[in-house]
């Protein structure tokens, strides 16, 4: 078991024939992801990486039965691509592209919600169910199959966390990089209950950062609904106020969104909060070896 995606998931790629789309779709295919085709306007009918190319998402869905789309289109076209996927009946859009305008994401997310389409990202590494299905840009080989679910706003901290968990002899069910933009799709509060319901997931690693209050909302949900142990790290304890730290959403505005308030809320909810990401693996081991 896993959450959201597995070896049978049929995936198409929007922005399939572009440089990024080509490279990463190729890597996903090598990993074993069931990529059934892609979309690039005016290239319909061609073949790319051994898969059919379609002009529209609607065509791709009709011909392949795909339920998930991995989006690599340039930032200015992300909103359009997400809405097209929603309209075509895609169930989950994984948006890798960095730098999509916030206004476009407001409209795209509202439209996706209206069509019951889930979204992950934008500006994220994607989602991976270990040894089954990789939809994104993460290095597949560090994710060994196991019993730990992982949710993270940061790409490289996802790798860092997964690597430590695997080095301690455990592994990953599914890892989801939810992205660091001001407006994102699925977040902690949608994904935590999925891990709670997944019989293979025995512990959850949650990696957050400064800015916004998603981690505070997660603390509330964990207290009320999550019975599985959670290990958390919040990046940016040493970040100055009022400065954007790489991710567009990672900014402490006034006194809101600090690492300290998030860490305290999570601790109060019974989460094992580590002060350094170097401690994630050890904390997971401590919990699972009990």
């Amino acid at each position, binding site marked *: 078991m896993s959450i959201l995606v597995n070896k049978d998931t049929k995936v198409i790629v929007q922005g399939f024939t572009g440089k990024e789309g080509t490279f990463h779709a190729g890597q996903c295919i090598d990993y074993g992801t069931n990529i059934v085709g892609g979309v690039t306007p005016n290239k319909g009918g061609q073949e790319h990486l051994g898969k059919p190319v379609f002009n529209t998402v609607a065509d791709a869905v009709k011909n392949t039965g795909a339920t998930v789309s991995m989006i690599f289109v340039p930032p200015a076209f992300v909103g359009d691509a997400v809405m097209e996927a929603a309209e075509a009946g895609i169930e989950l859009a994984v948006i890798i592209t960095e730098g999509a*305008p916030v*206004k476009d994401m407001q409209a795209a997310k509202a439209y996706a919600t209206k069509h019951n389409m889930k979204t992950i990202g934008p500006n994220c590494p994607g989602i991976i169910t270990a040894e089954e299905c990789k939809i994104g840009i993460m290095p597949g080989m560090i994710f060994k199959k196991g019993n730990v679910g992982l949710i993270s706003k940061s*790409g490289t901290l996802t790798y860092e966390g997964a690597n430590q968990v695997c080095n301690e002899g455990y592994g990953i069910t599914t890892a989801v990089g939810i992205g660091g933009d001001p407006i994102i799709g699925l977040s902690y509060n949608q994904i935590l209950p999925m891990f709670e319901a997944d019989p293979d997931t025995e512990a959850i690693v949650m990696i957050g950062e400064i800015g916004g209050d998603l981690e505070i909302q997660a603390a509330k949900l964990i207290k009320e609904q999550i019975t599985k142990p959670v290990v958390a790290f919040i990046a940016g304890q040493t970040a100055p106020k009022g400065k954007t*730290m790489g991710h567009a959403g990672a900014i402490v505005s006034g006194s809101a969104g600090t690492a300290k308030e998030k860490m305290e809320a999570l601790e109060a909810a019974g989460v094992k909060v580590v002060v*350094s990401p170097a401690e994630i693996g050890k904390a997971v081991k401590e919990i699972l070896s009990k």
Partner: protein
Amino acid sequence: MNIHEYQAKQLFAKYDVPTPKGIMVESVKDAVIAAQELGGPIWVVKAQIHAGGRGLGGGVKLAKTLDEVEELANEILGMTLVTHQTGPEGKLVQKLYIEDGADIQSEYYLSVVLDRKLEMPLIMASTEGGMNIEDVAENTPEKIITVPVDPTIGFQGFHGRELAFGLELTDKAEQANIITFAHKLYTLYMDNDAEMIEINPLVKTGKGEFIALDGKMGFDNSALGRHPDIAAMRDLTEEDPDEVEAAKYGLSYVALDGEIGCMVNGAGLAMGTMDTINYMGGTPANFLDVGGSANAETVAKGFEIILKNPNVKAIFVNIFGGIVRCDRIANGIIEATKITDVNVPVVVRLDGTNAPEAAEILKNANIANLIVGDDLGDGAAKAVAAAAKA
């Protein structure tokens, strides 16, 4: 990206949002000419810097004669203005805005911001104009009215009525005035991919009209590509020169006041590295995200920017190679040490794809000052120790 008050008011004018008449100047002589042109009888001389709290810091003053305009322009132009938003080092005033004085009956607060929780724009207003809005939110939260506007329906009549009644306006003409004002402001916000518009104070005149006495705007950097007119308003002198230089090479840099320079791939891991250094008893000198495609050139540039900071006693390079292979990064680091004179100990931790090969390359390179870190914790500990010894 933020812009100056005078630029925000240019945009206000484009959307018919009322503001006092004003002229931006860069010399005392022009300040007097501008005041003559505006006509008076009173003027406001305003420092143009990207920070709030200018009035309290002595950067906004009233003049009743042309001589006073000259005197105040002389005083404010070239001063280093310190406000609660500039930090103790303050900001040099290079531009002034000479503005007509306004007939003020009462002061309000009005802003449009992105509400991340609701994922839509939020209009905020208060009868407590001219105050620090964070203090109002803290002490009298009931005096702040919030009206979220769902962009799929846009600004409707009911949004306006919530605002007008919330501000306790009973006169029908005044209600209509504030509703029109807020509607125009919302349109300006949406049309231009603004991140924030803040007017503090918004004033009501004796005639019941509303005028933006101040204006502050910030924009979504990701959307600047489709707004060349706004991108052209960027004032690089208001930004940190090292951050600007780093951005040219695709590096995201923020200076801090510690001793250990950090070079990391990924924003989350970069913050996590700073936190780990702090946890181990050291102090980070900067945030630096080299991005997903670190190569010899970007690494060299990273070293150069970090080493400009005289407080740096050691550098911690922490890379988790995903798609990027660590052996290539190791070669990049060796190249970089040849391009740039690195005169402090450098701890390098490379993990992920091809990490063992990378460790071998670094070991064989025989670079003095180079220390290999085995993992994040080990690397941070070695960097802290190296900085303590220096």
